[in-house]
């Protein structure tokens, strides 16, 4: 199935842009570490859409975007695991997961 005749590439890209910036907003406005992590997942997925779309529309003879996405998913998994481990550890130590309260490393 080829989507190029049905839906232009630009649609995909705009969609990913929207998701990306929604993720960014999430990071900027939410102070809970977990929500921020969710924002990051959104941004990663936005990028994935891009990769996949480019692969599908522009270079269908290769699978580079596909593999990139896979790798990103793997890294995202690792990142999420580490981040959540950190968050839980921070929660244990500090008793909160709000970034406003975790700023010892400034200066």
């Amino acid at each position, binding site marked *: 199935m080829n989507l*190029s005749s049905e839906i232009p590439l630009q649609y995909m890209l705009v*969609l990913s842009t929207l998701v990306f910036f929604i993720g960014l*907003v999430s990071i900027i406005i939410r102070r809970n570490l*977990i929500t921020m992590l969710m924002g990051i*997942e959104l941004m990663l997925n936005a990028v994935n859409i891009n990769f996949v779309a480019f692969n599908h529309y522009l270079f*269908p003879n290769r*699978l580079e975007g*596909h593999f990139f996405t896979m790798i990103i998913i793997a890294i995202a998994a690792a990142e999420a695991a580490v981040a959540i481990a950190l968050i*839980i550890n921070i929660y244990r130590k500090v008793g909160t997961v709000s970034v406003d309260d975790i700023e010892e490393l400034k200066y």
Partner: protein
Amino acid sequence: MTGPKIIFYILAAAIVVFSVLSVADRRILRAAIYLLFVLVAMAGLYYMMNFQFLAAVQLIIYAGGIVVLIIFSILLTSQINSKLDPPKLGNLLLGVITAIGGIAISAVTIVKYGFTPANQPAIEPTMRTIGHQLMDTSEYGYALPFEVIGILLLAALVGTIFIARKT
């Protein structure tokens, strides 16, 4: 309106709406569930683009793994009923303005840029091709990244255990 178009619009709408909801909802567990919906919708998008394997991976790892992890951590760190603090006005303004600006820039660029559509014949991303390429060391082979990712995951695993264990 063809079938694929309709499906795309539905998926796109779901992605955008649920992302917004996941950001905007102050009940964190709900936000996580909205995120799950976004991820699932994305898997649908991959499926549409013929990447069935990727769609499956997306579902298994993201929807099945990461979101569950996030939900666990939410349950560990907060009360179910507690609401997140409302965002600070300054942050909200900054974030939204930046996002709108960014969207504007990106969208304009995307729309203005003329992509040359592909003319090569497409290859089917079957399990066989994926498997071959993943283990291949020649051109378009991904053995090295695959191994590196393996090591990374191992390191993350060890690191996570190290960080999270009780001292």
